């Protein structure tokens, strides 16, 4: 922590610096805010209005483009696909990840470090670079155009960091708790489930955000593996839509708003958790 940089009682030279910094921050906030604001107002305009008066407010609140994009163009479906694929992937990331973290942090055995390093290596390896063998693997398993392929990859994407973060938390839990439970007749699963997991609940919320956001946003693996519109998640649906309707500006802005607004609203209510969760891997 450093000292406060406030206008009150500051030397003249410092006052100029403070005012300059404030102007810079206000300008940058606008650079972030305005494009999003313009996206939302453009979704209520017609293409003609957008092109002729890009900065003007819409003449009326016209929700018809939302109906077209959400119902007719299948964004309802894409949205629902993103929700369930992210949920299923995260369920397994959390279950398998916390189990493995328990296995590498609460026992002493010879192969422990090797297993731990094996999991950690996954953090550094760019999974996209292995797309060719992954594609052949999924083809052999007949999982191309099946959401299971993408979900499996999402699980693998999430596991290394989950194991890294959770095992760090689990190591700090005193062994005494475990011994007491063992005397009461708990087996290892019950210790994991009833003692360790409740204690690390805050860390679970952390890794959930850390992994769910990239999984929700992922585009590369659905692009390779999912062609059937029935299974397309939001980022892929958005991409195909941009290819097809590249001149219908109002529909494009509506589609973008549908993709961006839910995340934005969630963030407004949970900003603290998102910031903590997203930076969890890089902040100790």
């Amino acid at each position: 922590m450093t000292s406060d940089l406030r206008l009150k009682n500051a030397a003249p030279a410092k006052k100029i610096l403070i005012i300059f910094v404030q102007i810079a921050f206000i300008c940058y906030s606008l650079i972030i805010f305005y494009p999003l604001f313009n996206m939302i107002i453009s979704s209520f305009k017609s293409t003609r209005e957008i092109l002729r008066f890009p900065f003007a407010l819409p003449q009326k609140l016209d929700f018809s483009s939302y109906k077209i994009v959400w119902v007719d163009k299948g964004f309802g479906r894409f949205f629902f696909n993103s929700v369930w694929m992210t949920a299923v992937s995260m369920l397994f990331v959390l279950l398998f990840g916390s189990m493995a973290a328990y296995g590498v942090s609460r026992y002493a055995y010879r192969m422990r470090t090797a297993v731990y390093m094996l999991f950690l290596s996954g953090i550094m390896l760019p999974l996209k670079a292995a797309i060719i063998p992954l594609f052949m693997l999924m083809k052999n398993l007949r999982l191309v155009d099946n959401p299971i392929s993408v979900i499996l990859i999402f699980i693998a994407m999430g596991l290394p960091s989950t194991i890294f973060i959770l095992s760090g938390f689990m190591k700090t839990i005193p062994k005494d708790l475990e011994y007491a439970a063992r005397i009461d007749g708990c087996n290892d699963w019950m210790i994991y489930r009833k003692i360790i997991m409740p204690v690390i609940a805050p860390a679970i919320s952390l890794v959930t955000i850390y992994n769910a956001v990239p999984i929700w946003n992922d585009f590369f693996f659905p692009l390779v593996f999912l062609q059937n519109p029935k299974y397309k998640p939001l980022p892929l649906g958005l991409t195909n839509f941009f290819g097809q309707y590249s001149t219908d500006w109002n529909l494009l802005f509506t589609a973008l708003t549908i993709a961006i607004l839910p995340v934005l609203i969630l963030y407004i209510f949970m900003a603290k958790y998102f910031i903590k969760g997203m930076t969890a891997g890089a902040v100790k």
Partner: protein
Amino acid sequence: MNKKTTERLWILFFIAPALAVVCMIILLPLFMSLFNSLFSWKQLIRQDFIGLENFRKVFFTEPYRTRFFNALRNNGLWFIITMLIQNVGGLLIGYFLSRRIWAHEFYKRIIFIPVLFSIVAVGFLWSLYLRPNGLVNGFLKIVGLPNWTRAWLGDESIATFSIIFVNIWRWIGFPSLVFLAAIDNVPMDCLEAAWLDGASDRQVFFSVILPLIVPSILIITVLTIIGSLNVFEQIYTMAGLDGSPNFSTDTIGTLFYRTAFGSVDSGNPEIGIGSAIGVIIYLLTFLASVFSIVALGKKEVEL
């Protein structure tokens, strides 16, 4: 069953599911990439063992040579500009936020907003704004700078820079808040000692804060290297898979994808050459990470 065996079985039970998934999806494909890159391929059928021939093709044979080094140069550009603007900017933002300037909590939340959005959505949003008749050129005309209007994504000389800036817009909040957390963790007694010695703000920043946040600088550098080598969605959404105009925005990621699934040369997927490029991506990521850990690790200050 004795106690030792029971414990072994429990360990196996806990780590087996994750181990199976990680081996199948991360490690096996890594070794398969290495293996595949040493063979010639006819579509998806493996042919003969040819040693490092695929790598030789990437480095020395047209059209791969031109495409590869052109793409690599762009990845280098991504890394340098991101380090200079996004990470140095993030360090400054993090520093001023740590000084509790007016409305710092508000700014902190605002700059992090785009970090949550998908690259695809951000890319398409800005591709609309950067069109010749889009918002950016409209803004320049309004503020009286009509000479500054450009075909931001259509002009070979600036398209890559436009895309990098869009990505910085999306991601600068991340290093900012990592650095903020790091600076907030600098122990108060170090700072107080510096103030008592009459150090100026600048001296405190360069001589006390900066050496103490080296671990965060290291992490951000490694993440920037990995990120720069894996640029793909940004190009796909704003310039297209070919890295248009005229391959000026092409990166290793898009070149890799075209080689693996589309056409660079013959119009068919080139599994051998594609795998070779994949292996090169692995190696570059690994080497660059190790290099920055060694280079910056030496400068780390132990308290």
